[in-house]
């Protein structure tokens, strides 16, 4: 009995800890999710001159009989890790999207899609930045 209570409280501590804005999208937390990369395609230049404007493109195809509900674009080393969150009330099976992002440092950029059954799929892609977007005085 004691064991189960201990395990229970520890899990909840982990959940609460992960709810913290900065920890939920830290590199470590993202890797601990062990996301299934199947059906996710990302495209980002591997070497970027300036972090201020980087073309970023992704395509997501949900597993059969499931639909995409939400897509998070995350750069864990940015001051605000969540780049953009797309919420789709009209749930789609496949979604292609492109935008231009800012990156503070060289890092892995993640795309995490939440499906309608609560499952998450996602993948990361590395990018090397020569000039930072956020921390310079320009």
């Amino acid at each position, binding site marked *: 009995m004691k064991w189960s209570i201990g395990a229970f409280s520890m899990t909840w501590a982990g959940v609460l800890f992960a709810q913290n804005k900065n920890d939920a999208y830290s590199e470590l937390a993202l890797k601990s999710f062990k996301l299934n990369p199947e059906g996710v395609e990302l495209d980002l230049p591997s070497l970027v001159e300036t972090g201020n404007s980087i073309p970023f493109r992704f395509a997501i195809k949900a597993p059969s009989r499931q639909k995409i509900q939400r897509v998070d674009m995350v750069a864990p080393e940015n001051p605000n890790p969540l780049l953009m969150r797309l919420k789709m009330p009209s749930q789609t099976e496949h979604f292609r999207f492109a935008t231009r992002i800012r*990156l503070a440092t060289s890092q892995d950029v993640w795309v995490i899609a939440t499906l309608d059954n609560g499952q998450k799929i996602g993948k990361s892609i590395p990018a090397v930045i020569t000039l930072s977007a956020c921390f310079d005085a320009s």
Partner: protein
Amino acid sequence: MATINPFPIRIGIIGESAPGKEVEVRILIGHPMETGFRIGINGTDKIPKNIIEKMVVKINQDILFMADVGTGIAANPLLQFFVTIPATGGVISVEWFDDQGVSRKAEKELISLRS
């Protein structure tokens, strides 16, 4: 006298605009997207934050997606995505809201009568 619109929105539709066809939509929003991290010309004061917080893209009153935007999106945000044109045609519209209370809206016919 010509007035200058500080927040222009441009919507482009690429592909064959016919019912049932999939077309590419590009939305370009004019906005400075100041992060609040940059330092001004005098070298001490920070440039105040001015960020788009929310965008809503609709086709004929049906929400296609709602975007929560942060400081990680570049100035003059570009959204590029694909939509299937409904059988009855219609309009695609985009509306954004920033943290200083400014909002703008633009819309465009999916099937152009001119072409």
